[in-house]
């Protein structure tokens, strides 16, 4: 084995670690809905190989195979050989983007907007007003049907921990940040929201193959959040991205930064006995189904912490029977691969219906919006906890 780079520029040893056994196939949401090997992790790796070795050109069909990946990374959980599929695909997408510049202009424009918080909030509020005036075809644009016109202020209470607020989530789901802050403070900890200093984690840029943008954003976030304090994240995708800065930038500083990042549930799970528990009547939510965002379950592996933290606060917690299958949101995936995203969501919807739940919890803004658009009542786990705490 060597670490040499082939034409595709991905790590050869990583590519070789796949023996093509196929155990990933049933865990891949796109293979599940299309049954096509081109939509499977094993197939995508085989296509990376032929491009890497110069046997095949980077044809439309091969690029489609890569682009059709939601990057949920369920295949990594399933893989007995620990193939770093997510990393391979990110590197591949970056190669495709640098050599062919295929990302649609509106996606690139949108992603650039994420890094400018004031502009983002202005556009978001304008959209919200336009929605009230019925001027925007929200469903067709793939955005939530009722964006907030105003946001309640998110004020720091001290410096014990950072709360990473991010981009879209801060503009569209500020209430989740408020609830997170409330729950974290209930453990006797003070919170400083990261706000506009660290505007965007760059996860969506990495997923789209815009590696340079992602690395610039990572450097910006790291320099904005210096010190040793823990950085708590309530968005699965952002958490996974921040924890990966060490690898992305390959520097000691970045690795030290990533060590400080915690999914908010994993942080809370260690401090749950510092919170005064509600009595049974105060538990909320009715029958609550847990939908694990893939970047919680398959990337950060913090899904059990979500259960530990949530269980004491809700009336009834139920599992979906789909083994943590992706919901199809995938950050910007649901915008660029509309049909696939909907087909994958249909499976999730069926699982949610089978669970006969009153409400679904999901700790990721992309998933919650994608599921809400299918008519499900979706909340963030910390919102239910905050409600239970309020009614103590």
């Amino acid at each position, binding site marked *: 084995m060597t670490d040499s780079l082939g034409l595709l520029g991905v790590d050869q040893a990583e590519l070789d670690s796949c023996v093509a056994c196929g155990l990933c196939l049933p865990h891949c949401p796109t293979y599940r809905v299309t049954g096509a090997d081109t939509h499977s992790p094993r197939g995508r790796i085989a296509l990376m190989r032929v491009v890497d070795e110069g046997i095949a050109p980077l044809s439309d069909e091969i690029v489609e195979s890569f682009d059709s990946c939601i990057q949920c990374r369920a295949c990594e959980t399933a893989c*007995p050989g620990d193939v770093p599929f997510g990393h391979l695909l990110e590197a591949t997408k970056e190669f495709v983007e640098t050599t062919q510049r295929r990302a649609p202009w509106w996606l690139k424009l949108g992603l650039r907007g994420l890094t400018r918080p004031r502009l983002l909030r202005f556009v978001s509020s304008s959209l919200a007003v336009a929605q009230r005036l019925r001027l925007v075809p929200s469903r067709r644009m793939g955005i939530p049907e009722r964006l907030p016109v105003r946001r309640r202020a998110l004020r720091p209470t001290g410096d014990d921990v950072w709360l990473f607020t991010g981009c879209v989530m801060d503009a569209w789901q500020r209430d989740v940040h408020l609830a997170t802050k409330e729950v974290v403070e209930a453990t006797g900890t003070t919170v400083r929201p990261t706000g506009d200093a660290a505007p965007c984690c760059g996860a969506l840029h990495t997923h789209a193959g815009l590696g340079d943008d992602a690395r610039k954003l990572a450097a910006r976030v790291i320099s904005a959040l210096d010190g040793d304090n823990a950085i708590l994240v309530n968005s699965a995708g952002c958490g996974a991205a921040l924890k990966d800065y060490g690898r992305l930038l390959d520097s000691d500083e970045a690795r030290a930064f990533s060590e400080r990042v915690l999914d908010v549930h994993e942080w809370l799970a260690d401090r749950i006995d510092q919170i005064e528990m509600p009595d049974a009547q105060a538990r909320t939510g009715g029958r609550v189904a847990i939908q694990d965002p893939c970047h919680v379950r398959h990337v950060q592996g913090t899904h059990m912490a979500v259960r530990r933290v949530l269980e004491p606060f809700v009336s009834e917690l139920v599992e979906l029977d789909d083994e943590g299958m992706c919901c199809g949101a995938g950050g910007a995936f649901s915008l660029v691969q509309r049909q696939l995203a909907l087909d994958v969501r249909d499976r999730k919807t069926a699982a949610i219906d089978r669970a006969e739940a009153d409400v679904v919890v999901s700790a990721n803004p992309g998933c919650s919006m994608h599921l809400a658009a299918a008519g499900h009542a979706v909340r963030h786990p910390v919102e239910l906890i905050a409600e239970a705490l309020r009614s103590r």
Partner: protein
Amino acid sequence: MRLGRRNRQGGARHDRTDRCVADLVGALGPERVRADGAARHLASADASMFSDGTAGPVCFPDSTEHVQAVMRVAASHDRAVLPRGAGSGLSGGAAPLGDPIVVSTTRMNRVLEVDAEDRVAWVQPGVVNLDLSRQVAPLGLHFAPDPSSQQVCTIGGNVANNSGGPHCLAYGVTSAHVLAVEVVLSSGEAVVLGGLDAEPSGYDLRGAFVGSEGMFGIATKIAVRLTPDPESIKTLLLSFDSVADAAATVGAVIASGLVPAAVEMMDQRCVAAVEDFVQAGYPREAAAVLLIEVDGLSRGVEADTRKVAEIGRAHGGNVRVAADEEERALLWKGRKSAFGAIARVAPDYYLHDTVVPRSKLVEVLKAVYEIVDRHDLVAVNVFHAGDGNLHPLLAYDSRQPGANERVAAAGQEILEVSLAVGGVLSGEHGIGVEKRDFMEFQFTAADLEQQALLRRSFDPHCRLNPGKVLPSAHSCADVASLSASRPDGVWG
């Protein structure tokens, strides 16, 4: 037979294919036919390292009618047809020879009907083995054949290979669990073989079809028997200081009259690889471990568990009984991931499959290690010890000069040793291309001629999966030319 990384050559052969693709698209619709290089390249191999041909157009039928339509188009263009499930086979059964039209069954993935009272389900061939068991679990039923690849392999593929699995020791292999099959023949006609009655009259053509490796027809609906879940299950993990002690324990357990649901063995290297993945607490220091499962009524299971444990200890084994369902599932996850976990040892693997009499296990295992060492390869052993079904995994790097040849030579020697002690060519992976040229080691010319006659009576034009199973002298296909002249590649 060529052993090595899959075919990646370039070239073009357009006209003939274009007309055929147009007819397929006309019959199935554009969304069910892929003729591009990416789709064809990926359909050109299964999970084995055997690959001599290149997939032609890849079709994704939804229904029996679609499969019939493909078969008629194939006939009109005189093209071969290759059925494909999940592509998890290990003998090259779904790896094309020549450039056949590939019929992928992955979209025929519906459980059509479940009769809980009669314990029968009608399923489409693309239903994933484990999905079926999960779906009928609320009824207290499951589909008994459980290949290690059960989370990915399809029922259609199980039927084609008459697949086994750990629990087939007590419950029997796939054929015992298939009551009837709707088959599309190479003529395009759909027929039902077998039936739901206890004793269908006439010849057992269903029995002939199960295990026919895609050469008799394409199964489009399968009536499978569902097995009630046992009242109680206990899984024991026994570890030993020597492979011989483990093998002797297997013999003693069976000799005692017990019929465990499963008796699996893994050697030290295998344990290390799977433990790295599952962290189930497999003992890395043991030379060999046995995973033995007993099931049935609670009291009997308790008695059997004690008995197995006693026999194990008498042979110097350490015994651990899985405390709960979670621990049990984790142990099995380890066992069933072994072939993929091999990636931790080397980038390529050849998973062998032979069967030897249980009494010869120790002797043959010793020979396997010797053969593999001599060829400078790494052997990892993981197998169904209860029925003597060996699965030596040869780990290697195909890019090392001569590695492929050494693997092929070692593979053949292992076969010869197995046959010499009264074993057979294959336990459950099928013959495919892998063992085709060794069929003459086990069968006489007359045997093989009868098998060829049976094949021709189902598929007189030799259209379905040509060149597999039967060696050149007895095959209706021109095996030598199919294997020697690779068709033009997919990247044109």
